């Protein structure tokens, strides 16, 4: 026991350690504040929060879990990108490789997919919680708007994600999904009043989504870029605003 505490002292009581970690775990009010405000990851929180806001039965912890799942998806997603090539001739084979050949690949892919399903659940339950507590009421109106946008982005991430394996599910999902774009009023060539703007199969909004008139290589590449880069970047930016505004709008909502 003495040996261990000596060892810990040896490791922590020197210039290098102290240059990285500014303070210890001593349980003092000052240290509790420092833990939060001197840590770049934790200072997303204020040093003190209203007591009811820490209760699971108030928040259901759904927003936090959604954010955690987003981080989880980012990490597993980056790892999957090492083996997956967004090419119509290779995509499916890469998926099969991930499932049967790549060490740990099946586990990563499974957790990425199930994590995505979980995220859709938690984000919708989070919305329910925020509604039931009336947390969108002044001054938090705009944060609800950002939240709805994030919900939509979550669904778009799921959509662009499950068509990447280029299996039957993904192929027909992209078919049906982009044909709905084709039916957009005015902007899609089969939508109502599309003739006013002179829409055809090779110049409407579906064409811009697919990069062609039929579903092929450009469509898969576009889905891949949206899924891996564009939507996560947009969602991250909106998440920053979402969390920032919680603080700026007076912290966690509660009885006035």
């Amino acid at each position: 026991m003495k040996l261990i505490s000596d060892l810990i002292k040896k490791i922590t009581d020197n210039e290098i350690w102290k240059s990285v970690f500014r303070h210890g775990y001593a349980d003092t009010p000052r240290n509790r504040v420092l833990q939060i405000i001197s840590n770049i990851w934790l200072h997303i929180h204020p040093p003190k929060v209203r007591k009811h806001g820490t209760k699971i039965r108030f928040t259901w912890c759904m927003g936090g879990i959604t954010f955690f799942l987003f981080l989880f998806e980012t990490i597993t997603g980056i790892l999957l990108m090492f083996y997956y090539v967004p090419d119509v001739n290779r995509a499916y084979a890469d998926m099969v490789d991930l499932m049967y050949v790549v060490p740990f690949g099946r586990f990563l892919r499974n957790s990425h997919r199930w994590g995505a399903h979980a995220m859709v659940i938690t984000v919708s339950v989070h919305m329910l919680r925020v509604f039931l507590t009336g947390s969108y009421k002044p001054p938090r109106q705009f944060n609800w708007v950002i939240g709805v946008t994030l919900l939509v982005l979550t669904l778009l991430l799921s959509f662009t994600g499950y068509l990447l394996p280029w299996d039957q599910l993904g192929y027909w999902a992209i078919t049906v999904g982009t044909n709905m774009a084709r039916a957009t009023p005015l902007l899609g060539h089969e939508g109502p009043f599309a003739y006013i703007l002179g829409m055809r199969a090779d110049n409407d909004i579906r064409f811009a989504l697919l990069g062609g008139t039929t579903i092929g290589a450009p469509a898969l590449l576009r889905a891949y870029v949206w899924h891996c880069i564009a939507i996560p970047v947009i969602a991250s930016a909106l998440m920053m605003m979402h969390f920032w505004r919680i603080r700026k709008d007076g912290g966690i909502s509660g009885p006035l």
Partner: protein
Amino acid sequence: MEVSEEKKGLVEFKDDKVFTWPTLVAKEFLAAILVTVGLLFYSYVVDAPLRELSNPGQAENPAKAPWYFLGLQEALVYFDPWFAGVVLPTLIIVGLILIPYLDNNPKGNGYYTFKERKFAVTVFALGYIYWYVLIYIGTALRGPFWAFFWPWEKWTHDFPTPPPLHNMPLPLGIVLMMGFYFGGLVLPAMMNRDFFNKMGIVRYVLIMGLLLTMIGTVIKMVLRLSFSIKYIIATPWINI
């Protein structure tokens, strides 16, 4: 752990704050661990779906989207794609975005209550349940060729061919549609002036318009299932 003091006898008790570290951070950390463990355990036991290689000439039968889009897929059976695929989702999103601006009831800000905001909670809960009912129907009750099967029925390919659909006569359709929206907008305002006055005309019209559209989709589904009505309003340009 609680640093704030809760003394009896104090009339005003303002500072109910506790330190984030460790009260909140510990809980978040625990939640993250539990979620990870649950997720990894589930991933170990259940494989993520991977269907056959895509075949442009033949879809699966039935071809179903993942569960969270099956409500939308179910709606697409009853409405044209421009409505169920584009306008309806847009209306849902816009409606959700507008909630904070439409709900001008100052009560119920930051705590659970049903009594103080009966209308808002009822409407939201109905919409929420409606969406998940559609998802349930799409997931569990739709078999080959998207035919309807009760949970106790076996999925087969030789279900009876449904009768041909027909459109409602155009004048009747227009009268019904106008009557529905007109009645739905005017009657509640006449019967409950207080409700109307509290909201003001713009809020009232937006709220009731969105609510009526939600109810209208149910009515259209009932009409389709019971009377084989294809469109209520059928014109060369637009069909609903």
